[in-house]
């Protein structure tokens, strides 16, 4: 999974595209000094090209996410939230499944502890997803890393892993793709409150399938018969069993942790 040093992203952006010289010097120094180290993806860039690539790649996926945003807006409207409150929630929480569950739990007065706990539990899988970004993000500054992570959602995490494992080394891809998700998610949830009930069911247009399709494409990318067969089988069986027993997103955590444990034991 070590990216080739000669991949296309080594091309330096022209100076008029990049007024902040700090960004381009970053990638230049990394490029020359770490090319000997072949144990880790070296020279991770963080520039406008990466942001743009992430944004553009993510737009079709974000359109699918917008279908859910409208459904979320409709539900939030029924729960009694105002447009301003919905916009605030979508802009600051930015986690679709947990927001939908939150407005389903909504009542008057708001059961605050229940809502926040449910949101935390549903989103706990993100900590594993964020951890998986480490081989590349360890090369980025704290501001860039923790700023980008705010914009991480399932769909753009999948696109980012696909981009990074293919050797692009574009550290800004998560931010760029996340900005697309953010924009479409906030706009569509506001539209959902405003129009209420026009797109009640995203399944009508196959929009409910976008998440599955994104993950299938990523699975194809990550598949490697020799090293993935055993951990994937463990993750699959664990996730299927957990999903039968526990509601929410616990099966993602259970599957990920089980595969990781088995891999550690196997290597010992």
């Amino acid at each position: 999974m070590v990216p080739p040093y000669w991949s296309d992203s080594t091309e330096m952006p022209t100076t008029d595209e990049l007024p902040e010289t700090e960004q381009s010097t970053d990638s230049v120094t990394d490029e020359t000094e770490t090319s000997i180290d072949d144990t880790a993806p070296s020279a991770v860039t963080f520039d406008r090209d990466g942001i743009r690539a992430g944004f553009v790649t993510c737009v079709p996926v974000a359109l699918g996410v917008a279908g859910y945003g409208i459904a979320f807006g409709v539900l939030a409207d029924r729960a009694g939230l105002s447009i301003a409150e919905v916009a605030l929630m979508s802009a600051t929480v930015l986690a679709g499944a947990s927001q939908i569950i939150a407005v389903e739990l909504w009542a008057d007065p708001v059961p605050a502890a229940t809502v926040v706990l449910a949101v935390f539990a549903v989103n706990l899988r993100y900590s594993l997803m964020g951890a998986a970004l480490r081989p590349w993000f360890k090369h980025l500054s704290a501001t860039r890393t923790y700023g980008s992570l705010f914009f991480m959602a399932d769909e753009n995490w999948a696109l980012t892993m696909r981009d990074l494992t293919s050797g692009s080394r574009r550290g800004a891809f998560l931010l760029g793709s996340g900005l697309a998700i953010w924009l479409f998610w906030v706009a569509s949830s506001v539209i959902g409150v405003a129009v209420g009930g026009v797109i009640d069911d995203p399944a009508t247009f196959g929009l409910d399938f976008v998440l599955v399709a994104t993950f299938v494409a990523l699975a194809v990318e990550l598949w490697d018969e020799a090293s993935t067969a055993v951990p994937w089988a463990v993750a699959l069986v664990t996730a299927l069993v957990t999903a039968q027993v526990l509601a929410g997103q616990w099966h993602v955590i259970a599957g990920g942790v089980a595969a990781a444990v088995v891999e550690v034991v196997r290597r010992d």
Partner: protein
Amino acid sequence: MTDPLALKPTVVAVIAAMAAATYLTKAGGLWLLTRFGVNDRVEAALEVLPGAIVVAVLGPELATGGPPEWLAGSVVAVVAWRTGNIFLALVTGVGAVVVLRAML
């Protein structure tokens, strides 16, 4: 009818707590790794994590679907494998699921 611009203090407070809890999950995993370092075992675990998460999301998701979702999933896999084009894979997959749901 709710005032579209209403921002009730309690609602804003709950949203702020939701945002904080979510950010904690998004940033927390990587932060813990950075804080406590990575040894060989953690490295091995991290290596299988991306694929394992993908499979753990997909398995139950596909299990709740039926033949249209399974077939459309195969379409996505074949297109992604043959072309490496994510956009093409998504469009044909979503198109396939709409058609297959109408047919099957």
